[in-house]
């Protein structure tokens, strides 16, 4: 293992988002807080999802996970696409960094950004309502599995995209709808039977429901099932991404 090379790439990726912290952490936090303000104002007294859990409290883990999903994806996909478009990816491809080390560095940095966004959101959310954390281990495991899965999907999208337009299409037509329709704002039990069944085919639903169970101890499905689905997806997309990197798919002539 070229540990120093891997660590240097991780540091470079962290510095990349740290240099524009307002854009990479500040902006998603503000957007999430606006969602929270508006939905709290309109729905707080009208919707009761779980017994003893206010709608604002219910909303917070979902919003955090939605941001984990979107920021993990954005970190890897934008970095790789930018390097490809600007041509500076060549400086990494020339080095003795293996496919696995490349993968570790990019996913590690994306997870750090996602964790930073999640932590800031969680702390700020306490201004509105106290959100308990019933099982911190489940919260951490879901954050890693979901953030990791989306970071890897971002990596795959970045490898495949030839321009930012391709990335935007992937984000707008795939990531955004699946994350909005995954139970961030509602419990799937409030949906008609067909959409309840359809939700079970959306991996993002398990990520959000499992994450929420880490806070409240209750959810729509068994938390172990959610964890297994998220971890399974993480492993699956990781195998795909590492094999793409190892073959040099779309990055090595």
């Amino acid at each position, binding site marked *: 293992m070229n*540990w120093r090379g891997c660590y*240097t790439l991780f540091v*470079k990726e962290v510095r*990349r988002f740290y240099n524009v912290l307002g854009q990479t952490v500040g902006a998603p936090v503000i957007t999430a807080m606006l969602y929270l303000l508006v939905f709290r104002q309109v729905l707080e007294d009208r919707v009761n999802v779980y017994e003893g859990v206010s709608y604002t409290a219910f909303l917070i883990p979902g919003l955090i996970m939605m941001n984990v999903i979107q920021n993990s994806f954005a970190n890897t996909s934008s970095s790789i696409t930018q390097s490809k478009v*600007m041509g*500076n990816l060549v*400086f990494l*491809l*020339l080095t*003795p960094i293996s496919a696995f080390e490349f993968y570790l560095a990019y996913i590690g940095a994306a997870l750090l950004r996602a964790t930073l966004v999640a932590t800031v959101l969680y702390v700020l959310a306490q201004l509105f309502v106290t959100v308990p954390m019933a099982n911190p281990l489940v919260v951490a495991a879901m954050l890693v599995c979901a953030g990791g899965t989306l970071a890897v999907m971002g990596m795959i999208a970045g490898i495949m995209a030839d321009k930012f337009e391709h990335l935007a299409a992937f984000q707008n037509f795939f990531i955004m709808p699946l994350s909005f329709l995954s139970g961030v704002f509602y419990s799937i039990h409030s949906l008609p039977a067909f959409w309840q069944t359809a939700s079970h085919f959306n991996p993002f639903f398990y990520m959000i429901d499992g994450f929420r169970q880490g806070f409240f101890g209750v959810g729509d499905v068994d938390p172990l099932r959610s964890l297994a689905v998220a971890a399974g997806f993480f492993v699956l997309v990781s195998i795909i991404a590492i094999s793409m990197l190892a073959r040099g798919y779309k990055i090595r002539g």
Partner: protein
Amino acid sequence: MPRASNDTAIAIDRVHKRYGRTHALRGVSFDIRRGEYFGLLGPNGAGKSTLISIIAGLTHASEGSIAVLGHDVRSDFRAARRALGVVPQELVYDPFFPVRDLLRLQAGYYGCGRDYWPWINELLERLELTDKRDMSMRALSGGMKRRVLIAQALVHKPDVVILDEPTAGVDVELRRTLWRFTRDLNDAGHTIVLTTHYLEEAEELCDRIAILNHGELKVLEDKRALLDRHPYRFLSLQLTGDGGPLPAEVEALVEDRHEDTLELKLEQGRHYIADVMESIRDAGYRIADVRTREPHLEDIFVELTMDKPDGRAA
């Protein structure tokens, strides 16, 4: 398997590269010796950049193999890439970091830590970048960016350095600075591989020269032997007077005609300067000035790479 020996820096063995129906490299084989200043020449589309990309691991060969200092570029890629520094042709850069940070990051990718920072400072000094070390690449001129690319290729102290058209689009002063710098590197024991469109650059710097054309190796020789094997010399005559048509045997030797000056290409041992001049005088001209020149690399390059009228490559 590539042939590896202690005095071989890069061993290229029957390398083919196909892009769909395009056969960019057609079984290229040759060795680059350790410590030499090697020129890789060829017209656009000859396959030079493809070959360099394969050596650097930026693309994979369809067939054949390449080893750098005996390390296969695919199966032993870590050792091969540690031995290699590549200055890319395009002025590409990461806009997020200042120059010194970029160099430190690049060294880190190769597993080189803080103990390489003095070397990085030395590189900045030698490439006259010290006062630019905290500037973003965006703020640098094209020439300065080119220097940073060279520093990036050298941060890990590679034994073999590939310069892919390093002087393309740079001014004369910088070109001379880069020439000096690469010569110093070569004197310090680094193997230098240079691709360039400036043939006088290759003639000035390189010990051995390979010429690629249409994906094939056309020639690989010591520069001196290559120049010597060209059997021509050039005779330039400034004519005055109202002579008639030149004799057919002289007309056949005319390479170029500019106002009152003729350039003739004479084959050594077959055409003699005295005979040619006498024929021209007999035609009624006076010879006001005479110059001769030995062939340049460019003449050989043109002869070897120019497509024949029937469409065949030379």
